């Protein structure tokens, strides 16, 4: 079963992250490397993509004659998708277990961040012939 695990954050949160000490940043990177290594070795990792900085994000709407209108001004409280993991696992419980591990990554001073990770099942093009 495929799930997407989404890590989100506000601009303020990202700014705070950028001010972490060197050792806290390195601990954070080491944590992510270790998680990805484990997920690769278990054959569960399908994809992991960190996304570009929120300041670079754009919201696009179709304007008159389909000309794109882009807007890059966002309220401070807006939650941005920072990155996602796609995993292929045997059960929802396993997806939650991986998300919990992601959430428990170390933050400043090594204290666990406990950030919320949104978990959504990925829909499939398959159906089942349940007969009847």
């Amino acid at each position, binding site marked *: 079963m495929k799930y997407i695990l989404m890590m989100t954050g506000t601009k303020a949160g990202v700014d705070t992250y950028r001010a972490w000490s060197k050792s806290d940043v390195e601990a954070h990177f080491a944590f992510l490397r270790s998680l990805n290594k484990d997920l*690769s*070795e*278990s054959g569960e990792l399908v994809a992991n993509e960190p996304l570009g900085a929120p300041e670079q994000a754009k919201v696009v709407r179709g304007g008159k004659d389909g000309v794109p209108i882009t807007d890059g001004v966002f309220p401070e409280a807006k939650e941005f998708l920072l990155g996602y993991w796609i995993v292929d696992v045997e059960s929802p419980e396993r997806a939650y277990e991986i998300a919990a591990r992601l959430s428990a990554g170390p933050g400043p001073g090594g204290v666990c961040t406990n950030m919320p990770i949104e978990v959504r099942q990925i829909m499939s*093009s*398959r*159906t089942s*012939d349940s007969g*009847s």
Partner: protein
Amino acid sequence: MAVPIETLLRELAPQVLGAVVRRFHDFAAAEDAVQEALLAATMQWPQRGVPDNPRGWLIQVSGRRMMDYLRSEEARRRREAEVALEDAQVAPPADAVPEAVQDDTLTLFFMCCHPSLTPSSAIALTLRAVGGLTTSEIAKAFLVPEATMAQRISRAKASIKASGVPFQLPTRQEQAQRLRAVLHVLYLIFNEGYTSSTGPQLQRLELSQEAIRLTRCVHTLLPDDGEVAGLLALMLLTDARRAARTGPDGELIPLTKQDRTLWDRAEIAEGIALLTAALSKGSIGAYQLQAAIAAVHDEAARAEDTDWAQILALYELLKRMSDNPMVLLNHAIAVAMVHGPSKGLELLREFDSDARIAGHHRLDAVRAHLLEMAGDPQAAITHYRIAASRTTSIPERNYLITQAARLSEISSK
């Protein structure tokens, strides 16, 4: 007319693997070696021609890969490597006919479907080791990267090694349970095979076809087993409807609305013949019953000709031997078709307290269908929408949303 190289390689793969495992005793390494030999054949045979003894060629090339592997492991596992090399030197020549070729394939099935493996591991390993598919083909079929699938297969082989299961047929006592595990894996592969007929899926391996091919293989090896024949019959009778299951835009078409002229009559005939032969052997199992139900559907010229009374009787029997909750739902539908929708809805109410079914999208989908039959469109719309929010299948979700919209339109007129 010559057999295409790809087909030949897939047929030979399990035979070659069996021979290499018997000679070198290391299933995991042998499986990797055979994979490499198959890839070498794929590249060389189209240019140089198929060898006179293709099986012998594959065994020799696999053997050389194994020797290379064993030599590189020698520093770390000196003793085991020496013993294996000695055995290899006294082994019969590559082109001698290996004894009991058929038994090895069956043994491979049992190993790859070992109960200690998770379903997806067993599926991946069976498709590669017995099906002779490449890692890349299997990865594409399951929509995961090749590296992910390769790792899954490696870990499956490591599990088998850790479990210590020997490379031989299970004992008579274990065989029934182990065969059930094999049939279950094949059934899962078959069900994975149903995809929408549009989009990138068109290039994908047809897993339902592969499941049928592998089940045929088991049936040839165990021709007297009623459940093996039953499973093959069930697959054929279900697969026969494939062309009618999806519309031109990939939309789902339920059984009762399918254009039956698109059903494959030859597959239906084969399925019925297999089933008849299996049933005449005496004992009845769950797969044979499911096949019988599929046969009743497939024999009806039009949806309205369906013998629902017979289907109901078959579900009554199936309920007693299967704890699959979907069987209970299908039974409720059959009750509704024979005794009216309110009788069916009564049964569904009991399922609200059954943890295995309550909250499953199919419960709401079936309830919606019966409520519509019973003349309560508003309640039906509600349940179609709930079902749509609970399913993880895109074609099913679209179908359910469409039903809700259709009813909504009718009842507002």
